[in-house]
């Protein structure tokens, strides 16, 4: 696929719609193994991102991502704000001055984003964080450029579900140690919505 400015805007809008309707669910996940704010944080961050990018007129996809990054960084706080912020900032830098993005460029950008999260969060796969959704999805996209929307959704969903089985060693859930088992990681759930929304854009063949 190919990602245009319009696609990137739709991506964030779709993600925001999902996040808004799952706000309470995300917060309830964070109630179980965190501090009850992930839904509130994400709803604030995505809504304000959409407000911001709906106003602007963009030539480059990277500028859309930069505005999302800055909004996440300055309106969310907590762990998830700067992590999503860093992800979108790295993605933006990687695809700078390009428009539209071809599959390779976009996936390289996502890979940079994933690495940004890992560095900022000092986290690796298996620690029950959003990394556990990002890494399988990036790996899948890296494999080939024929990947379908369904494959993305399934991979992200499975990865999210898989976090149930993990013991948290990073973030607030780590205080629950073994008791974190059996609960989905909130940040993995919000990341799932993000990739599910990407798949929706994908499905329409890059033409949302």
């Amino acid at each position, binding site marked *: 696929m190919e990602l245009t400015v319009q696609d990137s805007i739709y991506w964030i809008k779709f993600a925001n719609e999902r996040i808004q309707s799952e706000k309470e669910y995300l917060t309830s996940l964070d109630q179980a193994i965190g501090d009850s704010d992930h839904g509130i944080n994400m709803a604030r961050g995505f809504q304000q991102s959409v407000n911001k990018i709906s106003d602007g007129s963009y030539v480059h996809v990277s500028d859309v991502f930069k505005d999302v990054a800055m909004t996440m*960084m300055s309106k969310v706080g907590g762990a998830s704000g700067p992590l999503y912020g860093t992800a979108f900032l790295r993605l933006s830098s990687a695809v700078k001055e390009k428009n539209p993005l071809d599959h390779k460029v976009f996936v390289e950008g996502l890979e940079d984003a994933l690495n940004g999260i890992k560095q900022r969060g000092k986290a690796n796969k298996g620690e029950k964080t959003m990394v556990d959704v990002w890494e399988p999805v990036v790996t899948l996209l890296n494999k080939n450029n024929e990947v379908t929307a369904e494959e993305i959704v399934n991979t992200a969903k499975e990865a999210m579900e898989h976090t149930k089985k993990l013991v948290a060693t990073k973030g607030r859930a780590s205080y629950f140690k073994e008791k974190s088992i059996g609960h989905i990681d909130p940040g993995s759930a919000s990341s799932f919505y993000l990739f599910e929304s990407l798949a929706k854009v994908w499905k329409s063949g890059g033409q949302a």
Partner: protein
Amino acid sequence: MKKVINDPNEVVQDMIKGLIAAHPTSLRQIPNTTAIARKEAPVLNKVGLVSGGGSGHEPAHAGYVGKGMLDAAVAGEVFTSPTPDQVYEAIKAVNGNNGVFLIIKNYTGDVINFEMAAELAEADGIQVEKVIVNDDVAVEDSSFTTGRRGIAGTVFVHKISGAKAEQGASLEEVKRVAEKTVVNVRSMGMALTPCTVPAAGKPSFSLDANEMEIGIGIHGEAGIERKNIASADDIAQELTEKILNDIDYVEGDEAAVMVNGLGSTPEMELYIINKRVSEILEEKGIRVYKTFVGEFMTSLEMAGCSVTLLKLDAELKSLLDAESHAPAFRI
């Protein structure tokens, strides 16, 4: 949810307005932020001290802004670390050309956001140093995980570093006493009831009518054990012993004690806890140099308390005794 609030999404803004209205001569809001600074900041040639974190822990952190303690406190949304841009504004506002020192509670969000702010400030040529407070012995200390949380002991770090900075010490010197404080401070808490984040509208967890949770965090994060409510003496014993098992005290050592209410536990009960804490310390030959009983690092309206011990030497004692004008910690 029974709360005296207006819009649940505006609690932090409303609180800050009320705070500034209450302390108009000593505090000011840094424009376009939720950061509170000493009215006279930046104090020229003094190391500027910035702390902060999620809201809902009042009087932390704005209550510790004042001569002899912090220069600024940055308030995030309830239980959510403030964003890097806000912390960055606070750093700039208190920079008196002798560097800025950050006191950060050890939570992933706080650490990341404050570190990003430090990077922004350093890019402007401001020298920034930091200490990360991790006094909660309920959490295992491990370099493979997030590690221990920062809880009520943070207030001692504010006090000691603030006193040092007020003396005109260098950034390195402030950092040294802050780290010394972190090395010597330990806390442990327990809760009887949960609390409700205003925007969430529902309690963060639930406890049965005769259950308590030992080792709970100040955002309702899990503790060590859930069990039947014990007597105040037993609770005091459990919290104090857990702390004493984690740090060596020998007979004759001196300590500062903080018995901190988490929100809805009456001061009467905090003093009842202190009764037993002071007895235990006496039994062990540990001299109580100073005791602080009250609400210092709360968790909204959670019922429960924490005990903090700070092991003192001559330097820490004199810094603890130094004058402080902070509204919530006048000495």
